[in-house]
Each structure stands twice: as structure tokens, then as C-alpha cells.
């Protein structure tokens, strides 16, 4: 963890951050791991954007009982990479980052496609990789491949 990093203190003192943990990027690829509040991400994204960072990707993890969203940010011009995790729920949409970072658009659509997590304020939240009338979210732990899955069938086969 580079102590001269300007974002370090800002992140530490941000009310959106629950816990900040420095780590060795040479060993595990991140300079900082953050645990954040579910609603705090747009605010942090703005902070990252103002300090020369870009959104690398958004993904999610299904732990069975709970889901978690993961955001990774990197700096353009200095070695600084951050992973931020926040709890997510299927009932309650997480705030969308598209207003702040246009790069979040397709990333959020992918998370929606694979996990069924929704984002409040996303302009066009629809499936991106799977056919639009698919009715399953394949990376969820409770996804069981059924009769409609497999390579023999696809939408519009009769077209």
C-alpha cells in the first residue's frame, strides 16, 4: 500500500466506507480492499473518477444466502487498484453508476443477466449476453439447467 496515494485518506474518512484494508498488490493484485455500504457506491465512484481512476469491471458473487456486488477500480497513471464489495439483494435494487460512469452501463447489464440483480436508475437494464426472453440467471447458485437448456434449442429456431 502506497502511503502517498491521495485517495487513501479520502476513502478512509468517507462515510460510505465501512472498512478499508490495505494489501500488497504484488501478492493479490489490489492495493486496497473496501467493504462499503450498499447505497454508497455512486458517491465513491465520483470520488474515484475525480482522482484519475476508471472502472475496471463490476461483478457479483452468490454466497447462497446472500449476494455481494464487487467493483474494481484502477488508476490510469499510477499503480493503484481497489476492490470494493457491498452487499446486494434481489429484493432491493442497488444504485446504478451509469450517471457517474458510462462504463458501468454494460457491466451492470451483465450482472443483471447473470445474477438477476437490478440497478435503480439504469437507463436500459436488459439482458446483454443471453437471449432477451431467457427466464433464468445462470450464475446463481439455485440455477438448475432444465429442459430448455442445452445445445439443441434456441430462440427463433422456427424463424
Amino acid at each position, binding site marked *: 500500500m502506497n502511503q502517498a496515494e491521495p485517495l487513501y485518506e479520502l476513502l478512509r474518512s468517507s462515510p460510505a466506507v465501512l472498512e478499508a484494508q490495505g494489501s500488497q498488490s504484488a501478492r493479490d493484485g489490489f492495493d486496497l480492499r473496501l467493504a462499503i455500504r450498499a447505497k454508497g457506491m455512486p458517491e465513491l465512484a465520483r470520488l474515484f473518477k475525480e482522482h484519475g481512476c476508471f472502472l475496471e469491471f463490476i461483478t457479483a458473487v452468490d454466497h447462497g444466502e446472500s449476494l455481494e456486488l464487487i467493483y474494481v477500480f484502477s488508476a490510469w497513471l499510477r499503480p493503484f487498484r481497489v476492490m470494493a464489495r457491498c452487499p446486494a439483494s434481489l429484493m432491493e435494487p442497488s444504485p446504478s453508476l451509469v450517471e457517474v460512469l458510462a462504463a458501468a452501463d454494460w457491466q451492470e447489464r451483465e450482472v443483471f443477466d447473470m445474477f438477476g440483480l437490478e440497478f435503480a436508475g439504469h437507463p436500459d437494464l436488459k439482458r446483454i449476453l443471453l*437471449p432477451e426472453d431467457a427466464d433464468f440467471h445462470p450464475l446463481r447458485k439455485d440455477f438448475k439447467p432444465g429442459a430448455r437448456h442445452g*445445445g439443441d434449442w434456441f430462440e427463433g429456431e422456427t424463424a
Partner: protein
Amino acid sequence: MVERQETPPPVQLGILSQILDLCRANSLWPMTFGLACCAIEMMAAGASRFDLDRFGAGVFRPSPRQSDVMIVAGTISKKMAPTIITLYHQMPAPKWVVAMGNCAISGGPFAYEGQYAIVNGADRFLPVDVYVPGCPPRPEALIQGLLELEDQLTKGAKRNYLRRFQRHANPDGKA
């Protein structure tokens, strides 16, 4: 399943139709269209080292309206399949389909039970003329596949008089 569209010509032209077939066989215009890793080998086959132009098949057209061969090079996802059907319908007949790589033949490494995103092969919805196996096939394999298609068009390698490699046409080696 899209049916092969074969309307016999209104007038039978005899020897002239054979000449037309020979012309078609030696000026195949493939569509610029790649779906996954196999497309990289297709590009290599079209580039200077392997040079598909030697066989008249190097004019990759950016529009289906101008092409007569569809090289299905890569993995067909379920989202892509309807688009491929549309592209096929947009090509003017006569048209041919080459399934390049294991993915386009049978789903390749993605054909397992319970997968949800991949169609197991182009021949589930298109009339495929030539299969080129490999993961990915080498450019030479694609070239052989296209030569095979040319021989199909002239109804036999012997009648493909413009063919560059005469050994296959004349197994005894006389040119």
C-alpha cells in the same frame, strides 16, 4: 431449420451452365463474419501468407448481399443464431455454407449437458455444405475445405479445370 433454396434455372443452358459453375467455383465471395477464435484462423487464411485469393475465395465482402459463401467460423451462441439466420436469408442464391471448427460443427468444447448459451452446430439450422474440423482448423484446412466446396460446385474435381493443385484432380500426377 432453414431449407436449402434450390430453384432450377428457367432455361437449361447445357455446357454453358457448366462454365457458369466453373466461374462460380473459382470466384467464391465469402462474407466477412467471424464468431470466435476460429475467425482468427480464417483471417490468417485470407492474409498474405496463405492467401485465399489464389483460389478465388479471398474477396471477403462486408455485406451479405454481395457474398455467396458463409463461413461460420466460431461458436454460435443462442443470442447470435437468429442473426445468423437473417444473414443467411440476406445472401442472394446460389449460396453455400462452410462450418469451420468444432464449434460450428457440433458445439465443440461447449457441447455438454446443461449448458445454456451455445447452439450445438450450424447444421441445426443451416444447410451446411462443407465441414472443416479442428479447434481451430489450420488455415490450410480451411483452404482444403474451400477447394472441396469448389469441387462440389463443378460436380467433381476433374471438371474443376482451373484448380491450382492438379495432383488431386489427376492422381497419377500428369498435368
